């Protein structure tokens, strides 16, 4: 330690010191607290998105539904998608990444702890900004902007927009142009969507840099790249996908904002723009985004399945390289979203072929998971049930996905419920089942307790049934010709029964989620204490006590092999079967004791106000841009910029750790945690 100062550094504020309560959360730079905040925020948005889905399903339960207006329907399916993709699945993955990644590589924190807090606060501000459009859903939008012909568009005149829900962003999560441009979507909803997604992108870009540096630089001694848990590998691939795809959508969204707010015509065909460019830019980001959503769940089940099969992951290297391969190929297939948009036959053939090749690494992974379970001693705990549910439903979603690679077949399916069924199998049956597997599996790390197994299994089975009842019929509806994003269907189309089934299924899913919430709240206080190693786990995040101590590792871990913790507990007999070492139980007790009693003082990064302050500037700039024609809009842009730059300056003047005095702590093995 070379801290060389006796006076505290001068900063604008006194350094925050609270360790509990409201301010400790606002100012924390602890990756675990940030992970928990990501988790709860994401889950709250999950409930929003879920309620939106239920409203959609009520409208579609029978023919000629009149529960929602057309405008509300458009707004709800768009907001449902945006919420689930950007405000639930991505931040839920960020929650796991934050909480677990340092623990899995044997680090005390991420490479840039304050930047990590900044990511979270920007994410939260972006989400709130996006939803805040609901307060401004005035059908007579005060802004007029000149459209292609030079006349002023005075806001939307359709009275059906004049509802609270109708003011949410509409036009689809992909904001296709020129439909979501100034002429066809006047009003503020799309402005909020474009700027909100921009803010969320900043958050993700910052965390991607942070996590790439963390994974490359902060691994414990002996934690070579090919000894990292598969979850860490998948997160590394995700971080690179974010890193390289977010700048593309950033530019595309800037162009939308310029079109809508400053009168350019990048995508407005009537004045020389090219809507197809929007589709290219959007899907250049949008397709890697699909893998950004699914790879974290693949990482989670790759951790869960070996533990509950009592076998090492079958083909570790294959699954790692398949994951990297998916990430790489994921950049080369974007135009398969555009087969019906008039790209040339050459491009169609090339992108069709490229899309089919993605089935290869994906198939490898499926066989890896099956091979891991094959011959294993399976324990069907709740996390394992969700993991197996992930594998089976992801196979269905993957296979229906391959059918889109065949161009003529895609022309039949595109914009039908077949597609809706397909991607819900991948994103709900896949990603969300994976997320639940992870929540049940790592719950003890956060709380020191295990979740109730009976309620957990009930949750799984109800959700499994509800999910398949909701989304399997969508395939049949799609083949029957039911078009996506339609508000109503006629009784003669004979689509009522399966739609009713899907609606019933959606409410069954809602029941399952309620059971999960009850279980979570109950288990936090009353669940069985977990001890150090509730699952007989394999990786090093389970070598430290539950709940995780603030300093993570009492002493810096040294890693000797893949599945290091397992090899400490088990040896192999002559036939390669695992045999528990006689001292394994003592080892677990000793690790628990040592983990709670660090022998040397541990210094952690100090909390800071500045990440929170900096994040406040971005929504201010956002509101300012939306109302830039007014004086106060311009003032708001300036204030927002000042807030962010001021926060940055304060940040720059504040050291990551305050100077500390290593002498004079009581020496009773109390952890000396510097704040």
């Amino acid at each position, binding site marked *: 330690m070379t801290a060389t100062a006796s006076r505290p*550094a001068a900063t604008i504020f006194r350094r925050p010191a609270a360790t509990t309560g409201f301010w400790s959360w606002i100012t924390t730079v602890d990756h675990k607290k940030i992970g928990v905040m990501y988790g709860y925020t994401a889950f709250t948005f999950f409930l929003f998105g879920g309620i939106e889905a239920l409203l959609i399903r009520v409208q579609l339960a029978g023919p000629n539904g009149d529960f929602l207006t057309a405008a509300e329907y458009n707004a709800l399916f768009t907001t449902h998608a945006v919420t689930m993709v950007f405000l639930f699945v991505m931040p839920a993955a960020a929650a796991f990444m934050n909480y677990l990644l340092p623990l899995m590589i044997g680090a005390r924190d991420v*490479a840039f702890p304050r930047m990590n807090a900044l990511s979270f606060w920007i994410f939260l501000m972006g989400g709130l900004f996006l939803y805040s459009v609901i307060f401004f859903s005035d059908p007579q939008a005060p802004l007029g902007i000149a459209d292609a012909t030079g006349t002023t568009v005075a806001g939307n005149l359709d009275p059906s927009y004049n509802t609270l829900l109708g003011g949410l962003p509409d036009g689809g999560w992909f904001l296709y142009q020129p439909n979501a441009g100034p002429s066809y979507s006047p009003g503020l909803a799309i402005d909020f969507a474009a700027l909100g997604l921009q803010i969320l992108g900043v958050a993700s870009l910052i965390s991607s840099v942070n996590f790439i540096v963390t994974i490359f630089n902060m691994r414990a001694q002996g934690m070579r790249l090919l000894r990292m848990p598969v979850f860490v590998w998948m997160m590394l691939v995700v971080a690179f996908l974010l890193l390289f795809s977010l700048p593309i959508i950033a530019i595309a969204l800037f162009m939308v904002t310029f079109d809508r707010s400053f009168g350019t*015509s990048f995508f407005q065909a009537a004045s020389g723009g090219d809507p197809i460019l929007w589709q290219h830019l959007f899907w250049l980001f949008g397709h890697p985004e699909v893998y950004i959503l699914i790879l974290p769940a693949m990482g989670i089940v790759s951790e869960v399945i070996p533990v509950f099969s009592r076998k090492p992951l079958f083909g570790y290297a294959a699954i790692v390289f398949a994951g990297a391969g998916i990430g790489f190929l994921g950049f080369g297939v974007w135009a398969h979203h555009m087969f019906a948009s008039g790209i040339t036959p050459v491009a169609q053939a090339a992108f069709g072929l490229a899309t089919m090749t993605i089935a290869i690494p994906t198939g490898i992974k499926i066989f890896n998971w099956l091979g891991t379970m094959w011959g294993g001693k399976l324990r069907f705990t709740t996390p394992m049930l969700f993991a197996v549910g992930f594998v089976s439903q992801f196979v269905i979603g993957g296979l229906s996905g391959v059918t889109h690679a065949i161009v003529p077949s895609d022309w039949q399916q595109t914009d039908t419920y077949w597609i809706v069924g397909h991607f819900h199998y991948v994103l709900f049956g896949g990603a969300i089942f994976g997320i639940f597997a992870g929540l049940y599996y790592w719950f003890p790390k956060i709380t020191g307790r295990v979740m109730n197994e009976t309620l957990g299994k009930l949750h799984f089975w109800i959700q499994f049934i509800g999910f398949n009842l909701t989304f399997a019929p969508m395939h049949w509806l799609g083949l029957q010709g039911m078009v996506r994003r339609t508000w109503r269907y006629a009784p003669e189309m004979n689509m009522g029964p399966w739609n009713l089934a899907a609606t019933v299924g959606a409410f069954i899913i809602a029941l399952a989620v309620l059971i999960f919430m009850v279980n979570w709240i109950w288990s936090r206080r009353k669940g069985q204490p977990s001890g150090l190693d509730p699952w007989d786990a394999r990786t090093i995040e389970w070598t430290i006590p539950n709940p995780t101590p603030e300093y993570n590792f009492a002493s810096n871990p040294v890693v000797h092999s893949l599945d290091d913790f397992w090899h400490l507990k088990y040896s192999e007999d002559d036939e390669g079967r695992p045999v528990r070492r006689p001292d394994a139980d003592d080892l677990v007790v000793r690790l628990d004791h040592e983990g709670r009693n660090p022998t040397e003082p541990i210094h952690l990064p100090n909390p800071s106000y500045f990440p929170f302050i900096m994040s406040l500037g971005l929504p201010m700039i956002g509101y300012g841009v939306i109302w830039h024609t007014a004086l106060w809009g311009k003032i708001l842009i300036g204030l927002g910029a000042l807030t962010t730059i001021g926060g940055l300056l304060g940040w720059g003047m504040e050291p990551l750790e305050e100077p500390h005095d290593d002498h004079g702590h009581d020496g009773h093995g109390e952890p000396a945690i510097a704040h």
Partner: protein
Amino acid sequence: MSDSTIEVEVDHHGEHESTGIEHRKLGMWVFLSSEFLFFGALISNYLLYGGRDFDSVVPRDIYDIPFTSFSSFVLLMSSLTMVLSHDALARDDQHQARTWLFATAALGTVFLGGQVFEFTEFIEVYGMTLTTNPASSSFYLLTGFHGVHVAIGVLMLFSLFGISLRRGRLSERQGLNLELVGLYWHFVDIIWIVIFTLVYLLSAS
């Protein structure tokens, strides 16, 4: 920056960097590699739209190549002064490091001034505004975002210069900052090298 600010050099509790590259430096390189995608989109945008004139004035008709050549040269030379500043600091020649740092920031400011002049001329003399046509929009978006990057760089350079002036020296920690700002600055320069050729010379000829 207040005088009572004390330089705190914290050895990050014996943490090692598995790659041997300092965290912030690795982070900067990772970030810069993603910036290729950012500027790539803007440049492609111009390459696609640059010729769509719709009987109105487009950038390629009104480029002032001698003037832009001069700006490009200024930015190129600022890369030299930047690297000289970094090199001087590595030899702990604080005075030279500060001088070259100032020169870099000044050259950057000249470049920005040139851009302001160019934009003003395009708007006032030729009537080519942001909204004239997709070609002009994509031109202003590209060069504007590049200009914002240069401006951020100039701000960072002047801050470092201020710190150096005030404290009389740049510490080792600030030395890393100088290196990082330098990387960013050179990156902005290489993007301009591409823009100058693809957007100005090739599209005007």
